[in-house]
């Protein structure tokens, strides 16, 4: 049974007192949870189909060919057409579509409709479509999930490597520290963008490749902070005491140094997340990110800038981006405040 440390409880209390940060955290958490179920919100697969007394839940799992529902084609059922078909038949069959009945890849292409289409309730394009006729709301949602996943994974990997190397440098010091410092200095001077451009020109940089490249170059940033922090902490008397009692290096690092430097990691995290989101967006915007037609904010932004006259494109993505980045920044601000040992400072 884990008991919260009184100090942690105090910090949590203080975090809750930062209203906008606290509410942002709740809202963002909700958004992330929602986006995890993006398939239930924006999809061309129906949520529920009631057909001849049978129930179908097509959202997840294998695709259902058109023949399942009495159409004559073997590829995936067109559920929007099915919905209209059932409505016309009036035989008690029905289809429940998600709020946005479009998936982020399909283009709403019908003769006489020239994309980009403006927002319309009739077609349920709440934010309109892009130049290829794809629903912007759906692409924003899936793009959000992707950038969140990307930046969280990036953060996890960077912090893991950065912390291990940083603490080792600070704790062992001496020659190891010296050598590692030089290595990291050289490492950080490799131009990330160039490497990504080169990789992008020879292969399709998928999600994992891109993540790999970013981690490869970005883990170094965290090492400096962790190194300094552990340098400072290891000179403290409690570490000396632990050592005097015969504690091993491993125990000192994991039981004493790490918990005491955790604050640093936590306060940095939100800013790393915004960094991750903007980096991915910037890469997509420049065309070196995830390959088309992956739904991504950067690609939408690029298209929006290219089609300024279709203001719903650039409008949607800019508003979405500002909202998320501001929320994360507020969370970061609140965290910083909550973990501040000098209780009465004001964040300016």
């Amino acid at each position, binding site marked *: 049974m884990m008991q919260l440390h009184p100090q942690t409880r105090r910090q949590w209390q203080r975090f809750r007192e930062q209203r906008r940060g606290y509410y942002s955290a709740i809202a963002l958490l909700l958004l992330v949870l929602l986006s995890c179920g993006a398939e239930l919100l924006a999809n061309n697969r129906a949520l529920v189909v009631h057909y001849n007394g049978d129930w179908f839940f097509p959202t997840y799992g294998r695709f259902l060919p058109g023949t399942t529902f009495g159409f004559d084609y073997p590829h995936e059922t067109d559920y929007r057409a099915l919905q209209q078909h059932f409505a016309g038949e009036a035989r008690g069959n029905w289809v429940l579509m998600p709020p946005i009945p479009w998936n982020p890849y*399909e*283009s709403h292409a019908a003769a006489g409709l020239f994309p980009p289409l403006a927002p319309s309730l009739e077609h349920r394009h709440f934010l309109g479509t892009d130049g290829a006729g794809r629903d912007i709301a759906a692409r924003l949602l899936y793009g959000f999930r992707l950038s969140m996943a990307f930046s969280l994974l990036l953060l996890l990997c960077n912090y893991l490597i950065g912390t291990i190397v940083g603490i080792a440098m600070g704790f062992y010091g001496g020659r190891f520290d010296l050598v590692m410092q030089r290595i990291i200095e050289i490492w950080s001077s490799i131009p990330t963008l160039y490497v990504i451009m080169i990789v992008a020109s020879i292969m399709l940089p998928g999600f994992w490749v891109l993540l790999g490249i970013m981690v490869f170059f970005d883990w170094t940033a965290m090492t400096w902070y962790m190194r300094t922090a552990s340098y400072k902490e290891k000179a403290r008397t409690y570490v000396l005491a632990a050592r005097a009692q015969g504690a091993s290096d491993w125990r000192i690092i994991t039981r004493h140094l790490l918990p005491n430097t955790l604050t640093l990691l936590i306060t940095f995290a939100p800013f790393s997340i915004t960094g991750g989101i903007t980096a991915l967006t910037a890469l997509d915007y420049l065309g070196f990110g995830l390959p088309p037609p992956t739904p991504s904010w950067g690609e939408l932004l690029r298209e929006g800038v290219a089609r300024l006259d279709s203001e719903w494109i650039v409008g949607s993505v800019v508003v979405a981006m500002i909202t998320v980045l501001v929320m994360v920044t507020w969370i970061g601000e609140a965290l910083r405040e909550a973990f501040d040992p000098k209780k009465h400072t004001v964040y300016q």
Partner: protein
Amino acid sequence: MMLRVWLVLSLCLALLACSSEQETSLVPAKLPQDLQPYPVSATPLPAELVWQTNDSDPEFADPRAVRGGTLRESVPSFPLTLRLVGPDSNGSFAGYMRALSMGLVDVHPNTLRPIPALATHWAFGADHKTVYFRLDPDARWSDGKPVTADDFVFTLEFMRSKHIVAPFYNDYYTTQLTDVIKYDDHTIAVVAGNPKPEDELLVEQVNIRPVPRHFHLLDEQWVRNYNWLPEPGTAAYRVSRVRKGKFVEFERIADWWANDKRYYRHRFNPDRIHVKVVRDNNVAWQYFEKGELDSFGLTLPDFWYNRAQGELFDKGYIHKIWFYNSVPQPAQALWLNMNSPPLDDRRVRVALAHALDFDKVIQTVLHGDYSRMETHNVGYGDYDNKGIKPRALDLPLAVRYLEEAGWTTLDSDGIRSRNGQRLALTVSYGRPEHTERLVILKEEAKKAGIDLQLQLLDSSAFTKKVLEKNHQIASLGWSGGGLSPEYWQFYHSDNANKPQTNNITNFADPAMDALVDQYRAELSKPVRVELAHRMEQMLFDSGAMIPTFKVPYTREAYWAWIKLPTGNATRTSSAVIDAMGNGLFWIDVEEKNRIRALRRRGEPLSAPVTIVDETWK
């Protein structure tokens, strides 16, 4: 991290800015020394030659044209080289560089008959392979040196050299052109490898472009040493300034040797052509609207219908023209690399063709303006095989082919697989505006169980990838031209499976080789037409390429200070504002100042101008 990306980016930009302050030097460090004239032929000129010329076709330039001004254009990426041959020289900038040199004869853009260029007269030999030329004694290189028979003789030596790393030219100038004979300084004969009908022999086969002998030092270092050295040309412009990554500028040769020749006077009117790199088409559009580019292609429906609207057009500052031409269509297609499994299986290729919904693309994102391309070669008159209809969307058929080929398992997304391998095909392309078309194709192909993966590349990187045959499917168009279709470079096994040739489907079929060879050797047009039809049919049967779209017109917007000649352009104009091609328009410098003043005051110039010219439709 973001900060890092931007820091790196700005650092690169700063470095780029510093390094490009200096313009590239355009003169070779070392020139060939002590050139001895080539010996003249031992056998005299045949006596029975009938010399022909053409000085009676109508002139197509407008005598009202005035010289002056600078035409500003943009290209999406900086060329990888300024050489005319050798690695990476067949990129999109090659059009500019090739326009700097003339051939022996040219083709009248309206009557399609031969007209003099570097040669004033020509005569056909009895063997249907040799053509004799009298060179124009006035002809000069852009550096002032006279053009002589030696430059033509040198062409063979140059094009056959291993140092230029151009297997296509090496072979072409060995098998297709066997000899250049010098009779005196201004009389030569060019001998083709195979007999040809007279018109094609003259205009295409032996119509070589001289290579300035005094400029090239051929050695192992040639490709590197001459990468940024524009060779002297014979046409009206020469490269005057180059700033790598930024721009290439051409200047009009004021005392160009052909200034007063029939068919060449009143043409090539701007004093300078400034070609600037603008990497993004949308940014280029902003430049154009600001008046920093003089013209802009509006062939894309989105531009013609949506962008080219508003004040600048309503007030008559910018004009629009929709000009129907009659030219061989660029071969726009998806080119399938048959060496890249599973595209080595004909059934997969054919299934793919039946799984793509081109009609849907035409009816939506293309506004119904484009039509479906039928085969590789369209627009060559009798040579067109009108019996071939492109494979249309037919999902059941596509599925049947795929199942026959063993792609029977469907995964949970409906994508097929065979022995655990997914049916995923990569389409590489170099123009961002094609994304919209391809995503529609992708979605439809999914219904047949094919996963098309799109790979958008920078246009230079794309060219490199395709010419090195590293693509799986390439979406591109070859510009067409000439009097009859070309097959050897695209479908002969000589060019398959080696880098830097145009056989990007890696088509290698002995039956096709036989037809291609026969076609190249044949003299009678009806037989050639028949052969072309058979080759086109064989190509169709193989499914090696999937024809996409054709556009039998050009659409452009241009600032009103650009004046078009009577008739706007010619029958074969692929562009209206085409400075180095026909070069018929001119810039009214005074009008330019007037329009700028009007624009500052917000006063209109005229009613909106949209020209639709269907003369050649």
